[in-house]
Every structure is written in C-alpha cells, then in structure tokens.
C-alpha cells in the first residue's frame, strides 16, 4: 500500500474541479469558513488564441518520500503514516509556525482559522479501508489515479506505445516494441 500515490495525467485533466469538490465533501471543508481546500486547480496558458495551449493541473500535497515539511517541523507534528506513506499533520502538536510552508516546494501547506496546518491526508482512512482517495474516485476523465510508481510507469509506457502505433502503424510497433505488453483499451 505504501508505494501507491496519486498521479495526475495532465493530458486528461480538463480542470473541471470535481476532485476538489469531492475532497471538500470527504473532509468537510467549507471555503466560506475560510477553510482552504486541500486540492486546487490551476490553469496554465501559453501562446495565443486559437493556438494557445491551455493546461489544467490539479494540485494537492505530493506526500514526498523525503518530505521537507516533515524535516522542517519543530514540534514533530508532521509524520509519515506507516501504512500508506502519507504525510500527516497532528493538529494538536501544530503551533502554526509556517516552517512547513517555507520548506514545501509546492505550496501545499495552508492554514485554517485556528492557524493550524491544513492539507491533503491522502484519504488515509479510505486507503486503509481499501478505497481510493475521494478525488481519484470521482474523477470523470480518469485523469487522477491511485497506483504504485511501477504501475503508473507501465501505464505511461503503454500510452506511449499506443500513440506510436497510431502514428506509424502496427508494423513499426511489432518491429521495435514487440516485447512490450500493452492492453487494448
């Protein structure tokens, strides 16, 4: 379980925000009470209409293997969940010093009305119970997945091979990628 993480396929993300809402439903987050969302959607635009590239990215805590926030926390409020590998905050120990926010390269940590750090917990309880995180469960495009690194790399490879096949035809695929197994979707 520990090696699984949430992956975003940026080719599939359309910025609909279902993940952010499902997360708020799961975690009882109410923006009107100044409770920041765990998951946020960004739109990145490059170029000009009609040839602009518009990319959507759904971002939350990355649950880094080597978490700078955890190292930076002076009270030991941030720990790694043994079962899931999730980076977890113990609000009782959090003193709201923002050290974690300074350390995090992704801007993950936010603070609630009590000045306690507030971020994605990888739906640890759901994961322990054998369920997917709420954001993954809802995603209408299948852009978010909860998989092991190897599985995701395999999926990426399949997609790449699939694209090559589409582009150059089957002959090339057999010649060069004959050994790679990829499933017909």
């Amino acid at each position, binding site marked *: 379980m520990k090696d699984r993480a949430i992956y975003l396929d940026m080719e599939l993300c359309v910025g609909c925000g279902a993940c952010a809402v499902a997360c708020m439903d799961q975690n009882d987050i109410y923006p009107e009470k100044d409770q920041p969302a765990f998951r946020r959607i960004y739109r990145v635009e490059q170029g000009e209409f009609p040839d602009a590239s518009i990319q959507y990215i759904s971002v939350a805590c990355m649950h880094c293997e080597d978490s700078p926030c955890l190292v930076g926390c002076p009270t030991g409020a941030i720990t790694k969940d043994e079962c899931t590998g999730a980076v977890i905050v113990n609000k009782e120990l959090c003193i709201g010093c923002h050290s974690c926010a300074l350390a995090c390269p992704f801007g993950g940590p936010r603070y609630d009305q009590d000045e306690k750090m507030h971020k994605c917990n990888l739906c640890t309880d759901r994961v322990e119970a054998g369920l997917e995180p709420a954001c993954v469960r809802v995603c209408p*495009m299948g852009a978010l997945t909860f998989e092991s690194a190897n599985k995701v790399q395999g999926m990426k490879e399949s997609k790449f091979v699939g694209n090559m096949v589409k582009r150059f035809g089957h002959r090339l695929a057999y010649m060069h990628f004959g050994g790679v197994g990829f499933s017909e979707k």
Partner: protein
Amino acid sequence: MKDVKKLSRERMLVSGTGIEIRKSICTICDPQTQCGLDLHVKDGKIVKVEGSKEHPYSVGTLCSKGAATRQYIYSEDRLKTPLKRTGPRGSGKFEPISWDEALDTIAVKFNEIKLQNGPESVIFFSGYTKYFRPYLKRLAHSFGSPNYLTESSTCHRATAMAQKLTFGQPGGPDLKNTRCLLVWSANPFYTNPGNARAILKGRERGMKLIVVDPRETPTTALADIHLPVRPGTDGALALSMANVIIHEKLYDRDFVGNHSYGFEDYSEYVQHFTPEKGEELTGVPADKITQAARMYASIKPAAIMPSASPVVHHTNGVQNYRAVFDLIGLTGNYDIIGGNFVVPASFLHAPGLILTREHEFIQTRPWSEMAPRVGADRFPVWVDVLDEEAQAMHLPFQIRSGEPYPLKALIGFGMNYRMWPDSKGLLESVEKLDFFVNVDIFMTDTCKSADIVLPACTSVERSELRCYPMGYIIFTQPAIPPLYESRSDVEIIYELAGRLGLDDPLLKAGYEASVDWILAPSGISVAELKKYPGGMFVPNPIKLPEKKYLKAGFKTPSGRMEFKSKVLERYAGRPGFEALPVYTPPKHSKESTPELAQDYPFILNTGSRLPMFVHTRTYRLSWTNSLRPNHPAADINPADAARLGIQQDEAVRISTPKDAIVVKANLTQMVQPGVVHMYHGHSEADVNMLFEGDYLDPLSGYPGFKSALCRIEKV
C-alpha cells in the same frame, strides 16, 4: 490526527460506521446525463456522495456539480414550508402557511380565472429540472390551457426545429462507431462527461475530430482541426464547407439524388460561399475550412454532434443550424451506423430503446381544441413543427398587450426570470399578473415576487423515471424523506389536479399509476423497477435498422430530406423565414449595424458553459463557487485587456445600449479577441438585462444570447 480519522471514517462505507448506501441520480444538470449516485446515509442523513459504479452512463464518476450534491441538499437557503406573501412583490416578506391552505388557494384562484377568462389565461411553466414535465403538461392540458411553457424556449427546441425542418426527425451522433466526429459548438468535457469519455475512446481508436467552437476548450484541444468561428456565423461556415464538398464532388450522389428536395437551389446558393468568402464572414482561415470539409466528407461514417442551444442562441440561429444539418444529408450520413443515427426518444427526449406512451400521456387534448399557444401568431413555424409547448419568450409581450387574450395567472416550477432577455422587463410583466406561484427548492429572486411559494425537494428525496441511450432505465426511490415540509414537484402536480377537480383518470390514479401507463408498451412496470433501485437494462431493447427512411420516408412535407424547406416556402418574403438556409449576420453585428458597432465594438457572448455551473443551480454552493473565486467575472482575451489597460480581477463595465453591469475581468485565451464572454444569471450582475426583450430569432423566438454588441471599459 485522531479527529481527522474520526471525521473521514464517518464518510466511508466500512463496517462499524452504520452507513448504508442508497441509490439515486443527480439532476442538478439535465442534458440527458443524470449520473448515478451512491448516497452514504447514516441516521437518516446523507454524509457523503459518490458516483455509482454500476451506472452505465457515469460509471462511478461525478462532475464538480454532482460532487457538491450534499451541499446542495443541505443548503441553508432551502425553502422549508409553503409561504404566502405578506409584503409587496419582490420584498421577500412571507409567512408560512400549510400545504392545504396553499394548494386550496391556488386551486380556487385557477378555477375562478378559468370561469371568468378561460383556462388559457393560466400558464403552467417548467424551469429546471425536467423530470416532472410530462405530468405538468398533462395538468395544463387537462385543465384546458394550451399554455404549458418551459425553459426549453431558450434551450433545445430551436435545434429540434432546425433538425425537424431538415429531416423531420433528428439523428444523434453515433459516438461509438463514428470514424469522424464534427462537434459543432459543444464542449462535453464541461457538460456531459459520458460523451466526453466517448470522444476520448474514439480518439484512441483513431477517430478524426473536427470541432467548431468560438472558444478554446478541452474539446478543441483534442481536435485534429479546430474551426474558431466568430459567434453567430455558423451558417456561413457550414455553407462554405458545403461549397467545398459540392465543388470537389465529395457529396453523396445517391442520397442527394434519391432522398432530398431542393438540392439544385441549395447548390446554387452555396456557390457564393467559397472558402475565402467563408473566411471573411466567419474569421476561420479558408484553408482550415477546406481541410475540415474534405475530412468530414471523405471519411465514412462521419457524425455531427450538435449542442443544445449555443448555435441557436443567435438571431439567425435556426437558419445557421439548418445549414449545419444539411451537411449530414449532403454526405449521406443520415441514419446510418456511425453517422447521425435516428433513435426515437422513449421518455423526456432521451432514447431508452423502449416504446412508451409518453406522447399520448402528455397531450390529453389536441391543440385544435384549445386556444392558440402563447406566441403562436408571432412564431408560426414553432406551431408548425414543435408539438411540445408554447414559446415562452413571447410571454412578457402577451402579458403587456393582453392580445389575443389576457394572461392572468402563472404557476412556475423552478422558474428563473433571469432566463429571459430583458430579464427585468419580464419580471415586471409577471408582477402584473393577478396571481403568481413559484415552486422551487430554494428561496430565489423569482420566488420573491410570487404570491405563493411552494417548497420542492431535490432528486434524492423523490422518485423519478429516466431512460438512458444504452437501454438503461431507472425509477429512483427516495434516499431520504423530503427535508422540512418540502414535497416532490410531481406530488404537488397530482395534489393540485385533485383540488382543481379535473376529470382526468390518470391524474386521479396517481403518479406511479401514470408511470405504469406510460411504460405499458415496454412491458416494464414500476413494481419491477423498484426491485432495481440503481436502475436496470431494459429486457428487450428495440432493434433499429439503418436508413429507416427507405421504408418510412422522411417526416417532412416532401417526404424527403429538405435542403429547401417546404414548411418555410409557405412564408415566402418574410425576412428570416427563407426556405433555403440563407445566411444573415446577427441582428446586432459589425455587418448588420456598423454604426452601433463603432460604439459597441465587442461581441457579447453569454452563457457558454463553465464546468462548475449549470445555469444558476450551483451558485449558492461554496464548494462550486470556490472553483471560480472571482465570479461574477467576464472572460476577456488578454490582448483586448492589454489594449484597454485591464488587469486580471479588475472591475469592468459591460454595457449595451440597453443597460450595463459591472463585473471582474478574467483574462484568458479561451476567448477569442473581440469577444467578451459572460456567464448568466448572477443576482449581482445579470447579463440578460443587457438584451432587449425582442432580440430574438424571428423563426424560433430564441434570444440572441451568444452574439450581441457591447462595450467594455475599466471602472
């Protein structure tokens, strides 16, 4: 850490939590989607909402609107009891009354008006959602009123009009089998995730994709060819494509020769629309038009995916869409697998691969036995080809004129006055009625003007029948009882029918008996449906052959597909009613009104979808609002903004000769330069106020919401 764990455990279906799953569907939006819901219920309360994995349309997923279901259901703005107005109209001053008092008051008033002015003076209006529409229409007609009006007067009916004028019967895109999909101004990634997934699957199997859209969207991003049309010029684009197809002899000679009417005149008219002319009129480069025409016409089968309303939200909308739909006939893609395949609707405009008696149920007496519908004189083609309802856009005009007969009372179900152009004017007209009732889930601005307000419940608190195109059917059961004193719209309709003393056997027999009656030809009963709370596949799906017109002909006056409409030939000489799909620029545009365009140089395009909103239905929810924190905001191209010195989130005034609103600027390349896009229905910035009430397509009566002229300036 403990509290986090405790909290989320309460949201999960694991042993020991006491949670049980109840099935329902989401009807926050209603474009034939209705995703399946797994409602996690604990102690009578919904604690978490997930998509139903076994639902064949939504396969376990939800969009941002559906994911917000829990906040929608438990909103503090829910109406709790029936209300009677105590202050002046619009003041929002009400006192609670009992259901008996409310329904008796309405019944007495309606029957009084019926006696004094005739039943046609009472209007029955349906906004969102749509599940109760068959029963409401039956109520109206059994009462004797032809005036069943709906939100479809600005939604899908005009598209249906264009399809009916061309083919007699629409054919939907066969997404599963098509090899080339031409999406005409739709973006299912925001509105219909099932269709979006079908497009992704199509791409995986090598399907070509052409997308016509004035915006850049996730759909255009996937396209082989994106045709970024200037709003309101779709007809010119379609005629240009036809020009290429005819000129290069890529058209289907068999279909055109043996099954169409008016091809010669059409072909001659199309000669004017060379790709270069097309570029001039639409802003789409000529070579892209040529490429798209060749791709669409040379790959078989190819299908066109229309949208419900964007193309018909122009003053030239129906003619534009006729020109688009002509391409289906021109290329012989009508009613073939992988093309625009004709599947008759089973219920509520959705094909369900079963036969029903919906039409017989809703039309309890023929139109000829009732007074003319609202708008019948002004929009005669509406009456010629559309069987469902009256044209609601004419409502304020008839209230004001009292011609051909006075209108006295209105009961709305989910009516939102901001749907109309000149929305303020519409509300003032409605306030002139003797009696106005609105049924809604929430205390809306429209409710504030009503004499009586009735609280309706949400989809998860009631029963409704829905069909799905893959031959799936569901009759939902309430996951929780209606909150407060709210009731289902259908219950209100049947209660009212009783108190009105209508001699209507099915309205007397009740809701479920009516559903059984409607479903009788399918062999499916309510009792059986109740055994499958999450829905079921229909036992004997009807099998449909290709090219049904070979036997049955086309349901048009000529019995053929009509490039030149025989219905419209009757109106020769009337502007906008041309029998050929003649292209006229939008009523307010650089081409039609150059002087106006000098003062108002931007094209105002309203209502194109954003992923978190469907009309105003999720505006009150902080979860969906948080996804667009700067709303109400107008989308403006960064190049235009730079020229006008406007920065992101700065206040801008959007004005037309009619009125002005102030909103924030949202800079994005989604919108083309020269166009301002504004989402509709905001209480604090209602963009529909900027339109004149008669800014309508003369053919359909549809407002030109997607191309008017406006000015923007920094405040």
